[in-house]
């Protein structure tokens, strides 16, 4: 039931965003009906694993996350990749990284962040231990023998996995 | 003559009643001819069985003339034509499309040039 309501709310919010600028009474009512239909259809999926991500504090945190640390990391990563594209200096490899997260949603978030940030690309995820196998564009010499990497080895300024933990767990 | 021609085609006509009359005449003739036949014939007796020189009746599957045996001479005479035709009917979907496009191209040419 709680999953149903939360899904309906998020669907309704999405509907409000789609129709931004022309909110009339009928529009809102229609959106409500649609949100209920959608929630009935999808609540089994949307909140399958975690029921807490609609906490407002966490949502604000998520917004902040997207705006500040994530964006900065992304900009850095892009400049890095741009330089490597032009110079051609790469030292690729696949390493193991344990983000210390438990929920599927958190894993998804961190994997997507990894994919969009510094020279990294999530290749595989272990279904049980939640280990991420990350393809690095450039591994600093000497680091390649390390068994399992931690967040601060991958990210430079912000430890994104800690942020994600705060958002999603 | 109008009532005689239910279908007319420029140079001839067709009237079913006339034809039916002819048909009835033929049937009557046939009945008459049949009545001259042997009256001793009885159903369900030894008479009806074919007599083939005292041997047993052979297997019906052997004495039935199969479709593949009919018109052998015709097919043999027109062998060249049929070889060509059957080889044209390849059964290949790509060829079907090719024929369609070919006719399309040909008719476009005819239409535009004529």
């Amino acid at each position, binding site marked *: 039931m709680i999953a149903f309501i939360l899904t309906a709310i998020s669907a309704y919010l999405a509907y409000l965003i789609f129709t931004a600028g022309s909110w009339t009474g009928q529009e809102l009512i229609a959106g409500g009906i649609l949100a209920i239909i959608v929630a009935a259809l999808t609540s089994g999926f949307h909140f399958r694993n975690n029921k807490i991500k609609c906490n407002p504090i966490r949502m604000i945190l998520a917004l902040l996350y997207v705006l500040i640390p994530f964006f900065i990391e992304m900009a850095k990563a892009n400049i890095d990749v741009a330089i490597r594209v032009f110079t051609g200096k790469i030292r690729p490899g696949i390493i193991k990284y344990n983000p210390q997260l438990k929920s599927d949603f958190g894993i998804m978030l961190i994997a997507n962040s990894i994919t969009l940030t510094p020279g990294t690309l999530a290749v595989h995820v272990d279904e049980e231990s939640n280990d991420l196998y990350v393809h690095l564009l450039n591994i600093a010499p000497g680091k390649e023998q390390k068994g399992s990497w931690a967040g601060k080895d991958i990210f430079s300024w912000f430890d994104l996995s800690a942020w994600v933990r705060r958002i999603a767990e | 003559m109008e009532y005689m021609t239910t279908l007319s085609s420029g140079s001839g006509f067709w009237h079913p009643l006339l034809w039916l009359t002819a048909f009835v005449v033929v049937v009557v003739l046939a009945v008459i001819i049949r009545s001259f036949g042997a009256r001793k014939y009885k159903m369900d007796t030894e008479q009806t069985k074919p007599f083939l020189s005292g041997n047993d009746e052979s297997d019906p599957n052997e004495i039935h003339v199969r479709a593949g045996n009919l018109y052998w001479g015709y097919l043999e005479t027109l062998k060249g034509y049929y070889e060509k035709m*059957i080889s044209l*009917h*390849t*059964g*290949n*979907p*790509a060829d079907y*499309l*090719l024929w369609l*496009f070919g006719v399309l191209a040909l008719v476009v040419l005819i239409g535009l040039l004529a």
Partner: protein
Amino acid sequence: MLANVPFIAFALIAIIGLATMIMRKNIIKIILGLGLLEGAVNLFLVALGYRQDGIAPIFTNAPSTKMVLPTVQAMALTSIVIGVATMALLLSFAVFIYKKYGTLNSDSINRLKG
């Protein structure tokens, strides 16, 4: 001449589609060629209704001046849905054929011929 660029693109894509259909032997490739032709025809339809500097025929938040023609868009819409439907049917046929015949080569899909 130069202004007719979408039409020329239509012609080129349509020819590529036709060529795919008759030069390639694989059934799925033929179906892909059909898809190309379909796209070309849709492009032609939509391009027919374009007006120079026209805007989309929707009255929401747009100045209501010259608009492009709506009928062709409706036709293209219908044609797209019909296209995906036919493609789905043909692909299922092809899949089934592969299951039974073990090949997609159109030269081999000719058990019905002659």
